[in-house]
Each structure stands twice: as structure tokens, then as C-alpha cells.
């Protein structure tokens, strides 16, 4: 079994050689006064069709169409190679004209979303193992509700037993909104613990107003806050890993539609030039 690093070097090497070959060939053809736009356009369109076909492969897991991981490797490196083909196709300049500009913008968005997706897939997966228990994304609301119910039980127990409403008041003011829904989505994504520490410091500072029994209750609430924050962390990262595809895939379909329109227009207005 090859190591993943070795595979990365091999595939990157192949992609770089292919890119250099393409640039050299295009340059040679241009020197020979040949128009390369048609050839590179068809190559780019074929590459985009192939990249879009990966989604189809995912929908047909029961067919012997090869491993999804192999498809993803081709998807990544062919996808990266499209940037070079795109550059050669547009002559390394910003396209003019409405359809071309829109098409180029769409391509750049799809390309960028793909690269960002790749980065997220590689980095967030690792980060998910560093905090909190492994949870299924669909079960997170259930765990959150359970945690909120647990916290409310603790607070109401305290309210029944103690004469003071200090803990209950703190819960109502500061903790109820925290437990009611997912919090600090973006902070978790950029790995900031600012809000977590802020809330925990606030709880620590509030201890001075509490008696021994209430402090004990507060300590239990601290554990719940940490668990909820870990759950939010899991939600934030898992949601990002799931939802970036909701940007990448629809944009790809839009790109395909515009690419076909572009092909039709080019063919219609080519004036018979081969």
C-alpha cells in the first residue's frame, strides 16, 4: 500500500507535467498562427463534464464504476488542471461580453468552492477528532435538547432547595439562550475559544455571590456548558463539511448550462471556421 504522501506527489507530478505540456503545445500552436480556442474549449468542456460525472458516480454506488476515492483523486487533479486549460482558453485575460464574463465568473466560483471544499475536507476532519465526543450530525439537536433538559432540571432542583434565586437568575439571563440553540458557529469554524472562555470566566466570577450548595450546582452547570460548547463545535464543523457541497454542486450545474449555451453561440457565430 502506497502512502498518501507518495500518492499526492505522484498525482501532483502528473498534473504539473500535463499542465506544462498543455501550455507548451498551446504556445507552439499560437506561434504557428493556429487558433487554439476551439481545441482548449472542447478540452475544458470535456473536463468539466467528467468532473460533474463524479456526482453521478456517487448516486450509483451499486454499480462497479470504481472506488469513489479513485474518482475523487481524478476529480481533484483534473479540477486543478482545468485552471490551466481555462487560462489558456481565455488567453490569460479577463473575458469581455456578458455570457463569457458570466461563464468565467461561474467557473471561478466553482473552482474556488472546490479548492475551499478540498481544504475543508482535509482540515476540518482532523479537527473534529480533537474536541467533544463523536456524534452523528442528525442527532446533534437531540443531544442539545437533552442537555438543555438536564440543565433545567439542575436549576429547578436548586430553586426548590435554596432560598436564593441566584443560580436560576444566572441561568435565565446568560445560559438559557446559550442552551436554546447552536451558538458561536463562526468562532468554532476559525477555532476561536473566546466565547467559551468568556462564559466560563463569567460563571467563575459569579461564584462569589453563591453559597456552597449553589457553587456545587454552578460546577455542574460548568460541565454542561463545556459539553454544549463541544456539541456546537461538532455542529459547526460537520455542518460546514456537509453544506459546502450545496454551493459547489448547484454552481457546477449552472456552469454546465452556461457552457452549453456558450458552445451553441460559438458554433452559431463561427461562420464555418474550423
Amino acid at each position, binding site marked *: 500500500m502506497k502512502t498518501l504522501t507518495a500518492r499526492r506527489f505522484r498525482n501532483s507530478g502528473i498534473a504539473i507535467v500535463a499542465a506544462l505540456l498543455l501550455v507548451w503545445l498551446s504556445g507552439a500552436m499560437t506561434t504557428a498562427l493556429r487558433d487554439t480556442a476551439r481545441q482548449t474549449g472542447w478540452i475544458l468542456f470535456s473536463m468539466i463534464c467528467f468532473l460533474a460525472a463524479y456526482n453521478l458516480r*456517487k448516486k450509483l454506488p451499486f454499480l462497479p464504476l470504481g472506488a469513489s*476515492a479513485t474518482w475523487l483523486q481524478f476529480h481533484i487533479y483534473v479540477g486543478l488542471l482545468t485552471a490551466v486549460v481555462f487560462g489558456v482558453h481565455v488567453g490569460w485575460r479577463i473575458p469581455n461580453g456578458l455570457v463569457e464574463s458570466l461563464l468565467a465568473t461561474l467557473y471561478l466560483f466553482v473552482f474556488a468552492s472546490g479548492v475551499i471544499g478540498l481544504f475543508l475536507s482535509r482540515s476540518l476532519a482532523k479537527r473534529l477528532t480533537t474536541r467533544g465526543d463523536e456524534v452523528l450530525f442528525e442527532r446533534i439537536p437531540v443531544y442539545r435538547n437533552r442537555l438543555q433538559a438536564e440543565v433545567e432540571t439542575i436549576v429547578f432542583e436548586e430553586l426548590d432547595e435554596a432560598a436564593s434565586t441566584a443560580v436560576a437568575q444566572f441561568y435565565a439571563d446568560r445560559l438559557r439562550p446559550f442552551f436554546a440553540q447552536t451558538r458561536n458557529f463562526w468562532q468554532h469554524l476559525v477555532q476561536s475559544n473566546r466565547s467559551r472562555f468568556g462564559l466560563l470566566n463569567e460563571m467563575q466570577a459569579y461564584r462569589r455571590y453563591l453559597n456552597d450548595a449553589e457553587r456545587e450546582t454552578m460546577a455542574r452547570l460548568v460541565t454542561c456548558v463545556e459539553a454544549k460548547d463541544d456539541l456546537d463545535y461538532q455542529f459547526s464543523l460537520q455542518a460546514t463539511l456537509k453544506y459546502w457541497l450545496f454551493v459547489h454542486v448547484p454552481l457546477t450545474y449552472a456552469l454546465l448550462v452556461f457552457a452549453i449555451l456558450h458552445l451553441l453561440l460559438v458554433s452559431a457565430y463561427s461562420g464555418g471556421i474550423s
Partner: protein
Amino acid sequence: MPTFESIQRPERWAVPFSTEMTDADVDRLLTIEPFASLDATRFRGKVTLPGILKNDTRLVRCQPGDIVVRQGDWGNSAFLVVAGNVRVELGSAASLPSEILGRQPVHRKSLFESIAQLWRNSSDPEVREIAAYRGDPRIGTRGTGEQTRIYLQDVSTVLDKYQTATIEAGQFFGESAALGRTPRSATVFAERSTELLEIRWQGLRDLMRRDDALQQHIDAVFRERALKLFLMNTPIFQHLGTTEITELTEGAKFETHGQYDWAGSFKRLAKKGIDTDLQHEPLIAEEGNHTNGVIIVRSGLARLSRRHEHGHQTTGYLTPGQIFGLDEIIDGWLGKTPKPLTHSLRAIGIANVVTIPTHLIERLLLETTGRRSLARNKAKTTDPLANQPKIDATRINSDFVEFLVENRYINGTATMLIDMDRCTRCDDCVRACASTHDNNPRFLRQGPIQNNIMVANACLHCEDPVCMIECPTGAIHRQMEGGQVVINDETCIGCSACANNCLYNAIRMVDVRHEDGDFIRDDRKHAPIAKATKCDLCSDQLGGPACQRACPHDALIRMDMRAVQQLTDWYTR
């Protein structure tokens, strides 16, 4: 003074094999052979002959055609023909077809059938075609509940068409599989009305201990039928001729270490928290001791460990067919001074081992191979399943190895491992599994995690499949082609024996529905029909396990835990 709850100390026969054995049955059995001529004085203390017969046996009455055991089944009992006779299928020319034995024939979907899953998959969970349960005319079943039996509908045709041998009253069968914890080697069915005495392995073991003739008989049968074949198939002896193999067979020592019901004990232990102290594991060979011979694991699993500070560090594990002690014998033979064992070997649960004495290894193996060739080839191997039980400690963390061994995950031939550093939780694996199983995923992407590797809750397709032991109809079986452990939905009676026995909770009982979404119910009590379900490793799909093929990030693998080298490579990739 501390308070504690107390119970009566559990006794050997607290749970008898059958509650239906009466004293009259025992008295009758004591008048027939071999029990009539057993020396009663050799049964002392609590383990008496009537006690064994009452608690470790049960009478099974078969009608003509009833299948007693199937080739490939796993069982923990042997049989004695009390009256009548049974036939054993010899299978030299043609074997009985899977369908009439109540097994699911291996049917791989065609390309069109595969594509048709796109629109044919049901929207309701666990939908079945009710017609399939109305009976395959080729499968005969009789009896109810755990007494359900599959029977051959036309015994005379089977006798004409297939080669069989008769086992008459007074003869044993099934003892090798019961004692060796190996699959049944042949199918046995009743030719006419027959009475059998089924003896669970504990009773058989006690009878053998107290009756030399029985011991010798079973020993001889084992050596002739099973051990010879086993040694011939062991890679290091494959080049030897018949004479040498016979000599090895005669000199070999066969031992069982550990508890037969290790799965049950392990489940109880796991509930309390796994004990990391190896002292409770039966020692097969100890580090530092003289090397008596090569130890070959015939069935079960064994832990390889070395002393480390005040404990023992697991350095590998042995699965069936793997050997221990050969390196020390070779080193001793090459250096002309005996070398002590460098590792300890312990049974994990249960291990049946064959020991070939050192002098036989030296004479039959080393002297014929030659010093130069041995020195050159030592440590060289290309087969990933070959004798490489030691894990390269520089490449794989010892806590990960301990985790795999302690939790018995090494029992798997297709353990689902997920690298959580690469898994994006996209659930493509779960969706792929559902798509290939009529929209019913057959595993959970959940499970214990060690060193960021998750062992997901999916059938491991165990080397030692304890789930198969108590299945009354043989519905759960190992496919002859491919070796996957699968369930025949049509012959599963929903008794949950397999699900209760599974160590890894990988078998789920489900209530099945028909196409309109309503539960299928039995015609008497109108209770829903339950079926056991589990991962079948996509044995009917083109291209193999869909979960592994669907993982975009190379995070999921179905790992054969016998392939230590492959495991290490995957872990350190």
C-alpha cells in the same frame, strides 16, 4: 461492617443443556453402549455419569430427511446415534445444493438488476416479498420455534443422486467440529426415524477424560480426518510428502486452551469494563521457557506478548494457521544451542493449538531445507496472511494493538475501520449501504475510537463466528464462496440467538413489512414477524462492499485482521 448482596454460588449444571431430559431417559441411556460399559468408578465427585447425561445431553428425535448438521455450520455439540441411522454426505462427486439445505444460494445481481435498485428500492423500512415466506417448494421445514428443522423432502432421490455413507446406532459424529471449534465438515441427515443423543462439548470432554476407549477413538478420528488435512494445508509443511505428514500427525499434540463459551464470558466482562491484566488469559507458552516445539493455531485466537516493566505488552496476535516458536527453533538449530522463547503466547477466549515437537521440526523441516537456504529466507515472506503475527512496534502504536486485541476486533475478517482524521462524516458509506440493501443500512457509523481509528458497528465476518453456533435452522451461515457470514432471510425464524451471541452487537432484529408498509404477522398470534439482519458484505452486488467503494476520502476499509502487514500499512499510510 461492609454490606453486600449475595447469591448462591453458580454450579456447573446450573443451566442444563435441555430441561426435557428425564431420569427415565438417563436410565435408558445407561443401558446402551458406550455408556453401559463405562467404568462408573472413574466418575467421582460431582461429575457423575448420570449427571453428565442428565445435564449435558439432550435427545433429538428426527424424522426421515431431517437435516442434523450442514457442512460449514458451526456447532458446539457432538451426536451419538441411539436408534435408527443417519447418512453423511461424502460430497466427492456432487454436493447437496444450498437451496435444499435452507441456505441462500449465492446470487449476484446482474447489471440490470443493479441499476433497477434505483427505482425498485422500497420507501418503507425492511420490506419483504411475502411470497418468499410462503415457502420455497424445495425447502421443507417442520417444528416451531427453536425446534424448527429443515428437512430433505425426497430422501430417496438424494440417496440415489449423491454419495453418502451410513452412520449406524452406537456411532458418534460431529465430535471433531465440536471439540476443535471448526466448521462441520459434512452434511448429515436422518435416513429414517432416528433418535440421536446430542452431547454438548463440555459433557463430551468429561466423558473422554474418564473413558480411555472413547478418548482414543475420538483422538484417532481427529488425527485421521482433521489433523492430517490441517497439517497438509499449513504453508510450512506444504512441500512435505505423505510419509512425513503422517509422521508429523502421529507426533503432534493437540490442546485446547481457554473457555469454550468465551463469547458469553467476554460479554459479561465487557459490561464490567475490560480487564487489561493478561494474567486471566490462559498461557499456552511462556517467554523465557524452553522451546518444546512449533505451536500452530488450529482455531481461535492467541495473543503474542512480551514482558514490559511490570506488565505485558501485546506485540501481535495469531489467527488460525499461524505459527509460534519456529524462529527460536531455527535460531537454535543454526546456532547449535537451544534458544528460549522470546514471547509469551496466550489464548484469547479459546484457542485450539497443535504442537509439533522440536525434534520433528528439525529432522523433517530444517534438515531438508538446509542451513544456507534457511538463513537466506528467514524473515522473508510475500503472502500477507503468512506467518507474520508480530506487529512492527516502530510503525504502529502498542495501545492501538492492545485496543484491537482487548476488544476482540482481531476476530474479524472484514472489520470496518474508519480513519477519523480523513472521514468528513459525509455518510456516503451509509447511503451506499442503504442503496444496496433496499434502503436499509446494515451498519451504524458509530463505535469505539482509538488513535483516531473507529471500529464501526458493522458485522466483522468473524474468523470464529459465535453467532452461528445456536442458529436452529442454519439460516446464518458462512458462504462457501467468499466466506462471508450471511443470513438466509427465508429460513430465519427470528429467534435472536445470533443477535444475542454476537459480541459486537452487529446483528439487529427487525420487524418485517410487506409492500404497503404494514407489518407481516404470523397467522396464529398476529404478532409481527422478526428477522435478523446484518451486513452481508454486499455479497450479491457487483464490485464488492459498497461502503468501502463509496468512501471518497480513503477513510473506510474492510480489513482482514489476519493480514497484520496490510493493517500496519493502512495505519501508517
